[in-house]
């Protein structure tokens, strides 16, 4: 991985430090934060152990409330289900709430291929979509764009001339543009932050109000939810509604949380479809250590403290899930061996992520575990390991007597920016023997 362009790095540095400070302040207000984390971890761990039962419960509850439930083994299947539903309703466009899950399966592209336009309605997603780009941060996807770039984008793609580049003005332009789409849309598509098995309630946590728009106004709502998002009971919300807003946007509570169950006469969509998505999650579940990555609640707190993410940005991870969580989730979702095998190596194991993860995912431990699965450990290191298994071999190696020892260790990469330590006159144990007999 290479450090990103200076502008990107400046933006990321500024953004991550800002959100970090807000997060730290609101977490400091909560005296039982560690207890909440412990509960969050346990709820998720327990849920993964009963995933089949919980999904069946969720399905039954949604259906009892008049909703429909579909299952999808992979992206292709999910896109087919969604596409068929959209075309069955004769819709040529849909309005969408930001959903990493739908990005993961490339839903927009699949809909395009069927002649359906998916209008992204989060401001940042709108920006990312208009620039034919993709998201570089879970929470602030357009963090790599400045206001003047955005103004130019709106002018070019939305035909909005004469706009200033003041964020208020740009936001107002987006609001007016999107309101028309909300009012006329026949189908809304969302993801879900959680699905409660006990009641069949699905929830979306957001800031801008477009989530409410997409899940309330159109007569048909389709929600694509990763199977790992299911929570056992209604009560569990009391934990996650505290952990998530404080960890993600650094607020006591985000502006809007929408919780709906099936359909309701004369209030919101008359038709609701929940699509339960696997797409590699069962593969993650099959790894007894790696499955902890499924506990993630997509808060992005780990991104905001990661020194690697701060310097390379989200695109460098080659996936919709960047940063520390991306490094443990993506390789498992894609399969090992696979195209994401490099990711577990993209970490200095500093542990800052584990400290802030609201559900206590031990990311460094999972990174190390995945390193042994993907392979790529240095042969020179293995040679060193052999040398270290006995005193005599070790002492010989210290004195450079083991062939290949020195050259094997990527010296070029070290000396690119650092001097080598000057070799000492004697090793510690030579000193010890000399002075202590």
């Amino acid at each position, binding site marked *: *991985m290479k450090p990103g362009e200076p502008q990107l790095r400046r933006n990321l540095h500024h953004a991550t430090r800002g959100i970090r400070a807000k997060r730290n302040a609101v977490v400091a207000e909560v005296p039982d934060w560690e207890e909440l984390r412990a509960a969050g971890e346990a709820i998720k761990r327990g849920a993964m152990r009963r995933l089949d039962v919980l999904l069946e419960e969720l399905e039954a509850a949604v259906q009892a409330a008049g909703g429909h439930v579909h299952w999808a083994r992979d992206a292709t299947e999910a896109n087919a289900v969604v596409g068929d539903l959209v075309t069955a309703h004769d819709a040529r466009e849909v309005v969408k709430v930001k959903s990493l899950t739908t990005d993961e399966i490339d839903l927009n592209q699949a809909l395009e291929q069927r002649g359906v336009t998916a209008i992204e309605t989060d401001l940042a997603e709108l920006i990312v979509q208009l620039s034919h780009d993709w998201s570089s941060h879970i929470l602030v996807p357009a963090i790599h764009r400045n206001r003047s770039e955005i103004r130019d984008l709106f002018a070019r793609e939305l035909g909005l001339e004469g706009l200033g580049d003041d964020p208020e003005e740009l936001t107002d332009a987006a609001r007016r543009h999107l309101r028309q789409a909300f009012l006329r849309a026949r189908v809304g598509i969302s993801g879900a932050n959680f699905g409660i098995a006990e009641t069949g309630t699905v929830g979306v946590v957001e800031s801008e109000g477009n989530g409410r728009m997409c899940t309330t106004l159109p007569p048909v709502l389709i929600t694509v939810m990763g199977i790992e998002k299911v929570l056992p009971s209604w009560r569990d919300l009391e934990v996650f509604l505290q952990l998530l807003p404080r960890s993600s946007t650094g607020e006591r509570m985000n502006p809007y949380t929408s919780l709906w169950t099936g359909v309701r006469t004369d209030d919101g969509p008359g038709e609701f479809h929940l699509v339960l998505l696997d797409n590699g999650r069962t593969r993650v579940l099959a790894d007894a250590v790696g499955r902890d990555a499924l506990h993630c609640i997509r808060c992005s707190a780990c991104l905001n403290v990661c020194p690697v993410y701060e310097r390379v940005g989200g695109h460098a991870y080659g996936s919709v899930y960047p940063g520390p969580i991306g490094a443990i989730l993506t390789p498992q979702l894609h399969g090992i061996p696979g195209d994401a095998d490099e990711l577990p190596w993209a970490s200095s194991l500093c542990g800052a992520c584990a400290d802030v993860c609201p559900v206590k995912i031990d990311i460094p431990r999972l990174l*190390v575990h995945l390193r042994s699965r993907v392979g790529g*450990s240095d042969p020179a290191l293995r040679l060193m*390991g052999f040398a*270290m*298994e006995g005193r005599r071999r070790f002492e010989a190696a210290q004195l450079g007597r083991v062939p290949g020892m020195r050259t094997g260790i990527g010296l070029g990469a070290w000396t690119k920016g650092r001097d080598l330590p000057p070799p000492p006159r004697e090793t*510690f144990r030579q000193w010890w023997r000399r002075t202590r007999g």
Partner: protein
Amino acid sequence: MRVALLVTCLVDTLFPRAGIATVRVLERAGCEVDFPLDQTCCGQMHRNTGAAREAERLAARLPAVFAGYDAIVTPSASCAATVRETTDLGVFELSEFLVDQLGVEDVGATFPHRVTYHPTCHSLRALRVGDKPLRLLRAVRDIDLVELPDAQECCGFGGTFAIKNADVSLAMLDDKLRSVRATGAQVCAAADCSCLMHIGGGLRRAGDGVRTLHLAEILAS
């Protein structure tokens, strides 16, 4: 008190002064220090790079090598963390041993220089030694201890990360060096020679004249 020194393969081979200083500090604090010669490596590097079998073999050697001591002390926070995770041995990093086990903060040292301290990721997050190293340093006579800006940021070493992801590692190092320079310190200290090797290598390349010393070397002065 009789303690065994777990000197670490890195210190033994490349930074013996840190090991020698650790022995001096412990002896000055009233300990009898042994150095079991059969020790080699705790296996941290192998553990972290997915060479699990090699790491297990190395860890498995340790209990026999260190049998029969009241305590095992090491000048490396990262090795202490590894040994704790892979064995049942009672191993302590130097600063936590001095402060928690011996109840000592003033080790009788004098060091009339400006020093800044980098709290390595293992000491900060794995061992959670907190401010023990700083308390020990504050008690050093004539020291001018300056707080390192953004101290908690990783220096970018990360073991093989420094080589496998050299560009990002160097970008992180750049920021750490900037923080070090901002203090005007003549010496940057830490509780891990691995990080010091990386920070020191960068300082030497930059020709700043700023030295790196292990915490023990200052405490032994």
